[in-house]
């Protein structure tokens, strides 16, 4: 991801700290496409809230609300311009069905109906690429009983699903 209660905090001093965490920060945003047999296309997007809200705000000139929230309409405009799915050369119009926070992460769910197949569709996930030159995004597509994953960096054109 973009760099993507118990109050048992003393525990970490003894055992959690014994688990080395060697991190290499990579900027990434994930999009998962799933086509149901009834023609409903669901697109789930996961991105870190701080980066995502800043990107939406910059692209749509809309304010970042408290707790890194952004207006749904602005979210849809931003996502529609940076994350595209085209079937037979026609962009699939997506509707934002939910936006929720999970810790530092924002999850979006968008939907479209009447999609017959994703075979041969072209996709591009350009989320947050204007924010980070080293952004690498993932698209995971599930359709026709198969799963296909592909990556996008700044220079990449749309890619065709097999």
């Amino acid at each position, binding site marked *: 991801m973009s760099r993507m209660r118990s109050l048992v905090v003393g525990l970490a001093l003894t055992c*959690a*700290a*014994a688990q080395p965490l060697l991190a290499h*920060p990579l900027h990434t945003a994930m999009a998962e496409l799933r086509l149901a047999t009834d023609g409903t296309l669901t697109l789930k997007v996961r991105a870190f809230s701080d980066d995502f809200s800043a990107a939406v705000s910059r692209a749509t000139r809309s304010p970042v609300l408290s707790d890194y929230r952004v207006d749904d309409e602005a979210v849809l405009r931003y996502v529609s311009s940076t994350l595209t799915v085209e079937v037979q050369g026609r962009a699939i119009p997506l509707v934002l069905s939910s936006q929720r926070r999970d810790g*530092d992460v924002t999850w979006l769910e968008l939907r479209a109906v009447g999609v017959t197949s994703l075979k041969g569709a072209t996709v591009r996930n350009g989320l947050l690429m204007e924010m980070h030159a080293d952004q690498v995004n993932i698209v995971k597509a599930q359709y026709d009983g198969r799963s296909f994953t592909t990556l996008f960096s700044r*220079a990449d054109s749309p890619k065709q699903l097999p």
Partner: protein
Amino acid sequence: MNRPIVLSAAAALLIAGAVAAHSTKPVRQAPTAPVNPVVDAGTRAAARDSDIVLFERRLVEDPASAADRSRLATLYLRRARETGNFVDVERATREARQSLRLREGHNQATYGILASALLAQHDFVGALAAARALAADAPESAANQSLLGEVLLELGQYDQAATVFTLAEREPATLGTAPRLARWYELTGRMDRARAMARYALRLSAARDDLTPEQHAWYLMRTGDLEAKHGAASVADSLYQAGLVVNPDDYRLLSARARLAASQGRWRDVVSLGESAISTQLEPGTLGLLREAWLALGDSAQAESYAHAMTASALTQPGPIHRAWGLHLVDHGERLDEVLSRVRREQRTREDVYGYDLEAWTLHAMGRDAEAWRAAERAVSQQTEDALLWYHAGVIAAATQRDQLARDYLGRALQLNPSFSVRGVAHAKALLSGLPAAASSGKSG
């Protein structure tokens, strides 16, 4: 996802028991009665996040609370481990430093948090200073000594690490010391002791009901990693799978399974597991595995997209190169100058065996075998029982006409782990069969 973990604890126990039963050496008895609360992962994560929000708010009201900053740093580190969010590591570092600025007395444990956060950022020198401060405060603490030892191992300061681990070793092993002792044994050529200690840590962890699923999974993974290095692939995979029952979608375990599959040439499994792993966390080593798998499967376009992703991300970052990705590049003869430059830059402060291995392998790929040999000798200087190190050193020994050493090293690699790498094993065997008989060997080293 979000399934109750009652089954997972049972699975962890079963595996811990199974591994202990296969142990060749007795390990000390650990209590066995793990009772984990039935709390799903989503609830646990939400609780963790609400704690973070709670402490963030408290610090707005009382920014001078060193204790709250320390607790918040701990929570950030926990979330970093569970989600892979690097920003949380940076936050933990900031809060730990601020906490120590506010108060050093009765706050020494925060040095441990700071050391862990700095380790995660590959700031080994900073981590060493923090670990030394912690150890100096309570030199009798085996946990503190072993944290210091862990940092010294990362820096390649093996003699100093031995001194502090020898102190830590005198006390009964705990969850805070056992994994670090295992790492010391692993790096210094005592794999059997490392495996026994890892199993012991696993049993200790299985008996704890206050660990998170991520923590339980980590102990399973570490034990599995050592089994994998020992060539016990099926035991390792069982441990990894148990970890995934405990902590579904754990990207570290998925990556570990992908590595294991790659070593056995199960390329479809590598793709499936690796893609699941990067869905949670994009990690350079896993990207390298995926590229390798797609190449093996004949899909050059997919392989290229993974190579391209790495070029666009990890290689543009300052700091040390990711070791696994560096080896991957060298295996493909790519960016050798850059890899060498970055590993040598890192060696100014960090002289561990894996850095020397990467340097040696890169120099060999560049045809600079005399220099490669000097680095290879240092890479195997600790007698680390990692087949890959001995394979690389053996290849370089052969290239420099040290035939007897080449035979010894390549033979040792195959003996340590007969399936350490599909390509490496085939190459080692071919080299061995082509070496002249022992009587007519060249340089002895």
